[in-house]
């Protein structure tokens, strides 16, 4: 509605009439197109037959409960991997964000109280550390998650460390998502009105206290919608587990298809499951966003910066696979 009001005047009677006519015409055209381009070809190939759909939607079908037991297991595995990945990404991401912010303020310090060589050493060290974290962030942000997961699953055993495939998936997802979450939080902290950090400094809080007590909690709050969207991304990305034989929903779906030979039907069911869960999550994100901005609107304080466009888009867009 908000963008509606930017572009459009409140419609008058003529405009309403035109809209109505347009709606009817568009609906008819859409239905006709859907019938001829989608329904008819599928029907011709027998894709609506009960033989293909039965095991998925007909409880009296002999395979129904077996199939759904398997899908249930897959979905449980999907949720397990997503939950582990998001929790560890949050933990690692928060640490990384704090580390980067601390390093930034550290590199600005001159350590005037210390002996000159020591001060130079400390300054050099913090500059080095901050460069290293920066490079890590850029590299892991720039690599496809599929590749990261693949590398983890192939690389770890190479060095004699092997886990369950679940953990390869979780580690791969964590490497990528913690970097993204760190950037979300960091930009959340840097996007806060400068006055928040200044006010904290002005009552004598140290930079570390300021980050911990003032910036981080607020960044979490402001970035909550972006963080929830990231959860959607993680959930979607767990489906990459199939490349390393982790038995998540999609992989199990493939096994079922191997037996029942009904790919379209199984993928429709799986797609619907993902869409429902993720749609609910994005609605939650929107709801949180609205609540936050309503709280802000009544505030006398100048509006807090919204998350940088690039970042929120990136968070969503990366929706890997």
């Amino acid at each position, binding site marked *: 509605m908000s963008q509606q009001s930017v572009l459009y005047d409140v419609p008058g009677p003529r405009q309403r009439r035109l809209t109505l006519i347009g709606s009817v015409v568009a609906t008819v055209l859409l239905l006709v197109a859907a019938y001829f381009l989608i329904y008819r070809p599928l029907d011709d190939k027998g894709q609506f037959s009960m033989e293909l759909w039965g095991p998925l939607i007909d409880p009296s079908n002999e395979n129904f409960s077996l199939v759904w037991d398997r899908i249930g297991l897959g979905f449980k595995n999907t949720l397990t991997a997503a939950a582990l990945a998001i929790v560890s990404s949050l933990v690692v991401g928060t640490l990384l964000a704090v580390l980067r912010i601390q390093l930034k303020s550290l590199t600005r310090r001159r350590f005037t109280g210390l002996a000159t060589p020591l001060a130079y050493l400390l300054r050099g060290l913090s500059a080095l550390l901050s460069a290293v974290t920066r490079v890590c962030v850029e590299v892991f942000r720039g690599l496809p998650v599929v590749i990261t997961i693949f590398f983890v699953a*192939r690389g770890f055993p190479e060095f004699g460390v092997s886990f369950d495939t679940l953990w390869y998936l979780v580690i791969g997802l964590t490497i990528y998502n913690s970097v993204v979450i760190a950037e979300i939080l960091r930009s959340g902290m840097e996007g806060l009105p400068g006055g928040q950090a200044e006010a904290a400094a002005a009552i004598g809080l140290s930079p570390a206290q300021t980050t911990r007590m003032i910036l981080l909690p607020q960044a979490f709050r402001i970035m909550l919608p972006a963080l929830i969207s990231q959860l959607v991304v993680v959930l979607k990305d767990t489906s990459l587990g199939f490349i390393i034989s982790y038995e998540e929903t999609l992989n199990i779906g493939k096994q079922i298809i191997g*037996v029942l030979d009904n790919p379209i039907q199984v993928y429709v069911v799986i797609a619907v499951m993902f869409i429902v869960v993720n749609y609910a999550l994005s609605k939650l994100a929107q709801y949180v966003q609205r609540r936050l901005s309503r709280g802000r609107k009544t505030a006398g304080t100048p509006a807090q910066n919204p998350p940088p466009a690039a970042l929120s888009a990136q968070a969503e867009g990366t929706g890997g696979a």
Partner: protein
Amino acid sequence: GDDADEGTGAGSKSFAAGSTMERLNKAQAIKIGTKFDQPGFGQKGLSGKPEGFDVEVAKIIVKELGIPEDKIEWVEAPSKVREDVIVNGTVDLVAATYTINDKRKERIAFAGPYYEAGQNIMVKKDDTTITGPDSFKDGAKKVCSVTGSTPAEEIKKYVKDVATQLVLFDTYDKCRDALKGGQVDAVTTDNVILLGYIAKDEASFKLAGENFTKEPYGLGVKKEDTDFRNFVNDTLEKAFADGSWKKAWDDTAGKFGAELGSAPTVNRY
């Protein structure tokens, strides 16, 4: 307990100290790599358990180790990771339509063979243009196989333009679907795999011609673990002799109408 008469349970059999057999028997657990998408050999059914000839052969070995069947952890081992999972120790044994060849022997060792398959070509039922591997030499027909598999390498000798003619997937299921959907003209791999697909959908597919290679299937074990390899070989010979090998076949791939033939000679290199 109850397992005693089955000859299972820790210490139920005695093996040389320090051997893999003793370790597995003590642990009463074993990890076996197999395929999850190979009808007749290794396929995960709706029950969630893998079924097939590979699976049954592996079970014979496991039984000989004194480990109950339900203690087996089945690990999916698609063609391209089979060496890796053995070398890394992710699994103790691989039974996954695993062709014995010298390149693979550089990294792992094979017990067996326990079956001799051969590469063949599957086409649509109504296809008369493809009659054997030579039909790909004209550069027009597309053929599908799996990344990193022997048949994929083999068929490269026949196709004119690898980039456009050879389609590689991670599983044969995709190849089959591609053939059915008409995106490829043929699927090539071991005859038994193809027979599995044909058995399920006789209306759509058939084999085009005779086997054009020999593909002895072996069980993959760690390269240096000669004791274990010998144990597996012994067990296989026993199974050839006592009929359990034949029964395993008849219960699984045999249902597809493929010939088992006489027992192969295990290769104790």
